[in-house]
């Protein structure tokens, strides 16, 4: 269940993400890794308190220590202004328009998904790729976030159980264990 997008929009998003980072013999694709949930979770970051912007520290629990990444940071007033501008856009609020109107991610993604077409998920792969190439600005935004969702920390909703990291042999966060001197110099 998407938290911010509609079910229909989410279906288009998922199909688009799986073209950007497809499943192959090397590993799972974007959908299996939870990338659409990462994107939807960012668009709906302010639906939860504290908003899901910055995971906590210092450790995730994956290499010892507490599972502190799940305790998201609270935002200051200035942080909240910045992130509402980034996600929601200025949306007519005077205090967000000190340098003019800002188009937020929600609007960029909603408009971009609509442009891919309601039938996108059912279209053949070649047709899907052609539609993605037809809107390079939106596809760039989507791909940037798909990469974040694929290889960022799982606490943000993507990279489910670390599948993105495992596929590329990356250990992810390593505190508090770190690496021994031998592992650094003579791996």
């Amino acid at each position, binding site marked *: 269940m998407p938290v911010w997008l509609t079910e229909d929009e989410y279906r288009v998003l998922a199909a688009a993400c799986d073209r950007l980072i*497809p*499943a192959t013999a090397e590993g799972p694709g974007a959908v299996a890794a939870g990338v659409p949930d990462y994107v939807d979770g960012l668009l709906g970051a302010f639906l939860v308190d504290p908003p899901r912007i910055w995971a*906590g*520290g210092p450790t995730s629990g994956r290499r010892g220590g507490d599972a502190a*990444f799940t305790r998201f940071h609270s935002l200051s007033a200035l942080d909240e202004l910045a992130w509402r501008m980034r996600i929601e856009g200025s949306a007519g609020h005077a*205090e967000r328009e000190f340098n003019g109107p800002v188009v937020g991610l929600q609007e960029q993604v909603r408009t971009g998904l609509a442009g891919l077409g309601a039938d996108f998920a059912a279209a053949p792969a070649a047709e899907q790729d052609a539609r993605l190439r037809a809107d390079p600005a939106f596809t760039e935004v989507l791909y940037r976030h798909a*990469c974040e969702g694929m290889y*960022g920390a799982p606490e943000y909703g993507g990279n489910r159980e670390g599948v993105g990291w495992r596929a590329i042999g990356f250990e992810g966060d390593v*505190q508090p264990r770190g690496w021994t001197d031998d592992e650094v110099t003579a*791996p």
Partner: protein
Amino acid sequence: MTVDAVIVGSGPGGSTAADVLTAAGWSVVIVEKGRNHLLDPDDLTRPAADFSNDELKFRARHFLGPDPLVEPRTFRRSEADGDRTVVGEVNSVPSTVGGGGTHADGKVPRFRPDDFRLLDLLGPQPGAEVADWPVGYDELEPYYTEAEWSVGVAGAAGANPFAGPRSAPYPMPPGPPMYGATLSAAAAERLGYHPYPAPTAANSVPYDGRPACNNCGFCSFFGCPIHAKGDPVALLRRALGSGRAELWPESFVSRIRVSGRRATGVDVVGPDGTTRSVGARHVIVAAGAVETPRLLLLSDLDHPLLGRYLMCHFQTLAAGSLPVRTYAERGRAVTHVHDDMIVGDAAARTAAAGAGLPWLRGGMVEHAGAALPVLEAQHYPWGPAHPRLMADSPIRARLWAFIMQGEDLPYAHNRVDLDPSVRDARGFPVARVTYRPGPHELVASEHYGPRLAAILTEMGAEWTSVSTSPGRGNASSPAAVPESRHNMGTVRMGTDPATSVADPTGHLHGVDNVVVADSSVFVTSAGYGPTLTLVALAARAAHLLAGTGPPDPAPARVSPAPG
């Protein structure tokens, strides 16, 4: 309220001033516009727990600020570009308690004696305003030593054959070399260069009550989760532990109040948006070399050269893929550097002459890999090739690179001023950077780029590529903001008020009690990270102010913690 000193900015420069002044018995308020993620809000002498190995938080989501949506800067290459070509992130260094020290990976070499007197030794460069510093290496040496011991620097005295003389050893031995750096250092040596362990402000052994670095690899661009980085956490914790310092985070200094030849204090916009005035006997400005001139301009402390001579290191990057993994995700980002390309040789002199230049200098070369998969992924195309490229990983797991911090000469056309219309969320004009490399930088890069690539080839690289930041020729797009996070030179220091903005003690000419304590005062940029030199200069300025004079070379204030 009135305090002995208000310090603007809590980065390495401001923290150093706070440490020295509180040790001398002064009361200080450190005003910092960013948030406090460094120190425990309930006990400011203890670490906070906010830093983590989290690429999204630190690289994609502006955790340490400044967020370009609410605190943008603007950029243009020259006046011919119009008012600006970029609004957003420009030469950003974190805006947070601890400033750029929090996420720098802290390679902190000293400059060498020659670096302070290029005009005397080499003569002028056409188009540039090369000048000698009013402070030389010998005078700065005791402060370099103090800085290395108070911050906590791991290094090997004598390992760099080109280094200046030292009055004391490093307080810690170097940490473990990274695997890739063992390969690149050996290749560089085979080609006649002199790599050495990078002096680094991260503990190699427990020191000053903080643990040894555990090589987590999320170092450059990340706050240290275990506080093994000393710069500036050590300085700040000591200052706050003195009981004579207050730290005001989320507080923006919007103006230095001046009456005649004296500053009386500052105006501070607090977290709730209200402004209050604070009286101070002295104002120490350490806001970084872009924000410091901005604040002086906002305060109408004008001087025709204020903001000019911005230097930021013209970086040349040579990269290549090895047939094997380089394991750059383990360790402190950079463990080896070499100085040969700033020292120069006969080939460099020939290249300069061939290009019609009197001389050229490159910069210190960092031996580095790549560790971050999100950043890597965004460089590959989308589609079926993506998973294969990520698994093969030519530009992360198998990448090795050299980054030359090319010495940027001071040009009057490279500058910081106030943008005529872009504002921050608080309503104040933002800093505008006008920057383009000069002929010297381009020729030096052209000369050394292929030589860096040759070391990669010697290592067995499958391919090599050389690029610069900003790009040269066709790559020099109107949006080509330099990648360098080393900002210097916008409040030039000198004896003559006609050719400099600050005097040799860091005081603004014409104002008795405003001292600049960051890299704004640099006269030239050398080819080294600026931080240790700006810390040494800030320590010197603070000692001169407090009348405590140069410290004893055998530092008493810091004792290594038992192993």
